[in-house]
């Protein structure tokens, strides 16, 4: 096993704020990113507008936006970026296992973590203790409406099941339980199981995104592409929101409180989530729709239920909004 920890291209700092705005709003300004002391790199990413299908009916349409114009969190833990095309160059895609973690910046924040993950990097034993690490913005806060009570997890940028990193402070950020379990873990599972099954490599990169001088990341960008089969097995590019439904987070400090009636989770924007409306639920997929949504007709009668109440209430119950009608 060959590890190249520290080979990193320097801490990634977002020099301009990442404004979380509604889908479709705003212009096409590029996002400026600087790598350590090197000159700022400008990235402009236009998201795709492909069509997703659903077996036996339902559908979820992709979001169209630019990276600096990521839609506000609206009930689903992640949003697809660039039509799921990761931003790896040909040179970066290698079938030689390695892993690399950025040095923390002057605020103690983590930067990009990347790896060409092979079975040789994966763990052979159970994860050790990581409680001694205090990532930037770390707070120990408990809420009754959070799974496991604790709002924050020490969240691995590259999951333990992928590169077996235990208490590496360059790989741990303050992440909500929701981002960790509902957002990042499914992608990590997909990558881990693919590698175990095929013995192939997956090029993998996780970029924490901090607004300004915030100590807690607004979210993480996760990119992956299977190497030997040129992305046929695994390919994605998603932004995972560091939010917790029902909780309002001060990203500058990590302090948090139960959301009041007018606050939306995570973005600080008032999106009117508590307004009572009528929705159509799919109890099988846990999606909710407007009554006018074209997807409603595809819902099996046994799974269909009408609900009148707030959007926030549905999200708390584990429902997520339909990608087509965006209720």
């Amino acid at each position, binding site marked *: 096993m060959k590890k190249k920890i520290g080979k990193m291209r320097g801490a990634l700092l977002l020099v301009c704020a990442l404004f979380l705005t509604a889908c479709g709003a705003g212009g096409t300004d590029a996002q400026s990113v600087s790598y350590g002391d090197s000159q700022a790199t400008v990235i402009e990413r236009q998201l795709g507008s492909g069509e997703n299908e659903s077996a036996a*009916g339902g559908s979820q349409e992709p979001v169209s936006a630019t990276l600096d114009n990521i839609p506000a969190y609206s009930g689903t833990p992640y949003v697809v970026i660039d039509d799921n095309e990761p931003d790896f160059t040909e040179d970066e895609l290698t079938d030689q296992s390695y892993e690399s973690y950025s040095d923390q910046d002057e605020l103690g924040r983590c930067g990009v973590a990347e790896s060409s993950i092979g079975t040789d990097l994966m763990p052979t034993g159970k994860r050790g203790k990581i409680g001694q690490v205090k990532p930037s913005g770390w707070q120990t806060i408990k809420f009754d409406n959070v799974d496991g009570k604790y709002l924050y997890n020490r969240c691995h940028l590259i999951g333990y099941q992928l590169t077996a990193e235990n208490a590496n402070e360059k790989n741990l950020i303050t992440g909500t339980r929701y981002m960790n379990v509902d957002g990042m873990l499914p992608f990590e599972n*997909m990558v881990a199981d693919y590698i175990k*099954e095929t013995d192939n490599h997956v090029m993998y990169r996780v970029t924490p995104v901090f607004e300004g001088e915030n100590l807690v990341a607004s979210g993480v960008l996760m990119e992956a592409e299977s190497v030997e089969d040129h992305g046929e097995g*695994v390919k994605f590019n998603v932004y995972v929101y560091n939010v917790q439904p029902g909780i309002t987070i001060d990203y500058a400090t990590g302090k948090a409180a139960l959301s009041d009636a007018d606050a939306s989770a995570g973005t600080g924007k008032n999106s009117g989530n508590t307004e009572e409306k009528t929705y159509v639920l799919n109890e099988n997929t846990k999606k909710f729709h407007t009554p006018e949504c074209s997807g409603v007709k595809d819902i099996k009668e046994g799974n269909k239920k009408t609900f009148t109440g707030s959007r926030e209430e549905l999200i708390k119950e584990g429902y997520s909004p339909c990608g087509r009608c965006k209720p």
Partner: protein
Amino acid sequence: MEVVCLLRIVESVKLCRGFQVLVEIVGKEFSGVRIIVCVDNRMGVCFNGRRVSRDRMVSGDILEMTRGNVLWMAPGSDKLFEEVFKAKEEVCRETGTGKKMQDAGRPEDEKKWKVDRDFLEKAEEEDFCFVEGENLAGYEGKITEIVLYKWNRDYPADVFFEVDLSKWRLEERKEFSGYSHEKITKEIYNRQGVL
């Protein structure tokens, strides 16, 4: 497993896309296709045009289960089975068994696999259909048996298996270890009553 439904009444069957087909098969023997689907904990099947997961033990189990029947699939899905089939051939070659495929798998497998983009349309009675990202709208009434392989894992998904299983009867369930999955659950459902 042979599934035969004897239809004695005129029944209106609502299909996925909102149109209806009147089934008027009174006293006729009717048997449809059997579908095989692999799903995660939220019935997710695919993400970004790719299967959410795979396991050679599942592919092997499917080959075993469908032995003697036609197994339909879309282009791209056959790779899963070819890999398993080739691995078995390799084992035979290494062990020098003259019996070759008789011991390892199904000598007739290659002839029985049918790969076609429109396989749901072309599948006939008693055939198996391995379904991945295909839209089942319009075909639900043709299905008499559903074989689910559950990964028992959370994966991201944008294509889901949405057949309402409350209208189906669970006939069989078994668990086994996969090659890359700790526990895989296989469930076989039959349609309850008449269509």
